[in-house]
């Protein structure tokens, strides 16, 4: 199979307009299996909108998204989750009233089999019945997933494990970000999209997050990363894409992109946004 030459994710001419504003403007992108690409650019450049288009939360006005060998343009987010695409959200979208354990278990939802038989029409009713009756297969599956969740949480050291039964709203900001990433990992994703995973984190926490992302990359996970902290971007990325006003203005290895006059101008042209703003926070 020519899998190696087939990119995992491939965007062609992806465009999204909001009224008169073109938030994402004809973006092309190819992401190979196991590659980590960072998307940088000033605030409002259209990075998050691009993520929304890839994960089905928003639909493009033009262009296509291919994932593996399928055209997934306009697929629902539920469907894309089942295909193995997981994401985190820039502003954090944990389930506030759910415990850490339950939050991460939701991440494993697409992998439920015993309790969610793939039977058409009466499938949902079977699911209700199985959830209430709980035969041993269902109990075993739930137990196995709970063990998996603990293993995922263990990757965050002592940050989350001691708080496993606490509701997410009671966690610190940084811990909520970690829960989001744990939830994404519980999906066993083929493609992981991280939207500013270190926003609002202090240097120690950022370093920890950077180490975790590096580890995920070594494990072979394919990752698309939006990040303002340039140092982290330089260390982790195979390639960097710079967006400004919806357009891709530069692409290439980190060091090359960093010196590109267009990139410098984009950052300066928008005042001291992006990297400088983050480090001031």
């Amino acid at each position: 199979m020519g899998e190696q030459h087939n990119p995992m994710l491939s965007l062609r001419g992806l465009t999204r307009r909001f009224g008169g504003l073109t938030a994402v403007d004809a973006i092309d992108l190819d992401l190979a299996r196991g590659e980590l690409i960072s998307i940088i650019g000033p605030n409002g450049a259209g990075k998050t909108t691009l993520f929304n288009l890839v994960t089905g939360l928003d639909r493009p006005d033009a262009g296509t998204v291919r994932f593996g060998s399928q055209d997934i343009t306009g697929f629902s987010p539920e469907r894309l989750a089942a295909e193995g695409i997981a994401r985190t959200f820039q502003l954090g979208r944990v389930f506030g009233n759910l415990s850490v354990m339950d939050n991460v278990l939701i991440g494993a939802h697409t992998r439920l089999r015993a309790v969610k038989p793939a039977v058409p029409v009466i499938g949902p009713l079977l699911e209700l019945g199985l959830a209430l009756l709980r035969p041993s297969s269902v109990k075993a599956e739930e137990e196995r997933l709970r063990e998996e969740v603990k293993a995922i949480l263990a990757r965050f050291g002592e940050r989350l494990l001691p708080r496993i039964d606490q509701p997410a709203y009671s966690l610190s900001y940084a811990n909520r970000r970690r829960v989001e990433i744990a939830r994404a990992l519980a999906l066993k994703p083929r493609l992981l999209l991280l939207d500013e995973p270190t926003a609002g984190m202090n240097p120690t926490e950022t370093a920890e997050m950077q180490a975790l992302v590096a580890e995920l990359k070594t494990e072979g996970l394919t990752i698309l990363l939006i990040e303002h902290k340039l140092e982290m971007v330089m260390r982790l990325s195979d390639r960097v894409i710079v967006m400004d006003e919806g357009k891709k203005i530069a692409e290439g290895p980190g060091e090359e992109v960093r010196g590109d006059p267009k990139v410098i101008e984009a950052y300066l042209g928008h005042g001291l946004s992006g990297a400088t703003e983050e480090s001031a926070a």
Partner: protein
Amino acid sequence: MSSWLDYTINGLIVGNVYALVAVGLALIFGVSRLINFAQGSIYLVGAYIGWVAVVQLHTPLPLTIIVVAATAAVVGLILERFGLRPLQNSVRIAPLLATIGISFVLDQLVMLTFSPNPRALPSQLPDIRFQLGGGTIGPLDLLIAGVGITSALLLFVFLRYSKLGWAVRAASQDRDAAMQMGVDVNRVNQAVFGIAAALGGVSGMLVGMYYNQIDTAMSLQATLKGVVAEVVGGAGNVPGAVIGSLLLGLVESYGVAVFGTSYRNLFAFLLLVVVLVLRPNGLFASARQAPPEPLTGTFIAPSRPVRIPRWALAVAAAAFAILPLFPVSFYVLQTLINAWLLGMLALSLTLVAGTIGQVSLGHAALLAIGAYTSALLSLALSVPVGLAVIGGGLMSAALGTLLISPSFRLRGHYVSIATLAIGEIVSLVILNWESVTRGPIGISGIPPLSLFGYDLISPTSIYWFSLVVMVALALLQGRLLTSHLGRSFRAIRDDDIAARAYGLSLNRYKSLAFIFGGFAAGVSGGIAAHLYSYINHETFNTQQSILALTVVILGGLGNVVGAIVGSVALVGLPEVFRIAAEYRILIYGVVLLLLVRFRPQGLLGTI
């Protein structure tokens, strides 16, 4: 055909009246993303102030209009200042519940002050009709049209040319940006609530004059019609609300022309459901909009639920089970039977509103479906009563879920509107489908409860039966909450976008919640039918929906034990304190408001 012109004129005039309500709703929605369920109550207040002015103070017409507009505006300002402003930073469900509570309090205050009997509101205009083309038009029609057009012009000038009007427009376009630019959001809210209330009050007065009758049932109808018009025009869109209103007026008027008066409301609600399904952002919506990410805060108040040990629950259940063995009065048993029936409804609503976050305002419709099904099964098909009650539960689960399914893609306030409308549709269908439901006559002679051939007639046996059924439903629901479905439901409630991104289908899980909850409510309605032996289309009404909602908030959203504790408290305490029936709804409304303000997580905490 001259009558068509008459129907057109009538439709436009009624549409004008709706527009006065809908424009206020649109202004409020624009700046605070809130559907003001109390708008109809202000309309009601306007009608009664008009009555006081015309009948008691004998004010001339222009003065009447000014008095009504000014008084209603004051009510609107009070509502904003004391009802909503304190909730500015609370969870999203809080202002929604607050306007529902305020609406009930206002309606009850009007009812207690003026009695629920209809009154005549004379129009103070000469009773002549002018020929116009093939139809006729009266001075009152012209007055309504004149008031409508004048208000629209004044509003346009205000929004376009005054500084405050500019602030209102800025705030409705982007509230955060407006605040950063120094717009005083409190002043904007005040302006908007004042204007909305003045328009709503005048509208109520004009409608009272138009039909020469006012009564307290006007309130809910006005809210519903205004909301329908506003949603058809696109929530928050002021010109859209006007066009939506005229459209609604015409659709109703032509519908009445073809099918008869009793179908008027059915057309309004069908229009709403069709628009919600096909164009949830209204007929004139342009951009597809992804909802903004929630910054902090969730839909319901976060809390740590009070954990009650199992043994304590078992002891409490046992105590209630052996209660009839002691010399307690029938009155006590009767009160507790009511509490158990309400408990089943509250279990259903706490799952739907609390666990999965669909604040249903039409939950009594599920009771009605269960009651009619069970009654008809046992009467017409001679099904044993025990099985008929289960049949009622199943029918309520199936039909309720089917009816509500168009609203599954909606969020927050829209769900409440859709459920309110669907509840009305159910009671209108019951009223009009005479061949099956016996229409307004109702169903009498429903056989008593029986189990395996033994009639349950004594209060003790009915008490035990309803207690056992309620406890069984509660245990089942508790089991549901600890399954993967419990966490999936709660995840959808907390953040449906994130839930979808992790593969949770909203249709699938909302359906399952309504199926489970519909069953409990249907069983409750079925048992009630056999206890009452007579039911009609008004037996299960909005008041019960609101009572159930208050119970659920009191107990803690999603909290199974809380639903039962809340039921016992809200059924029992008024009995203990011997509060007269007409004050109870008022008290429920006040309790709801106080809870939302001071203890949003309820007694036992949200789950």
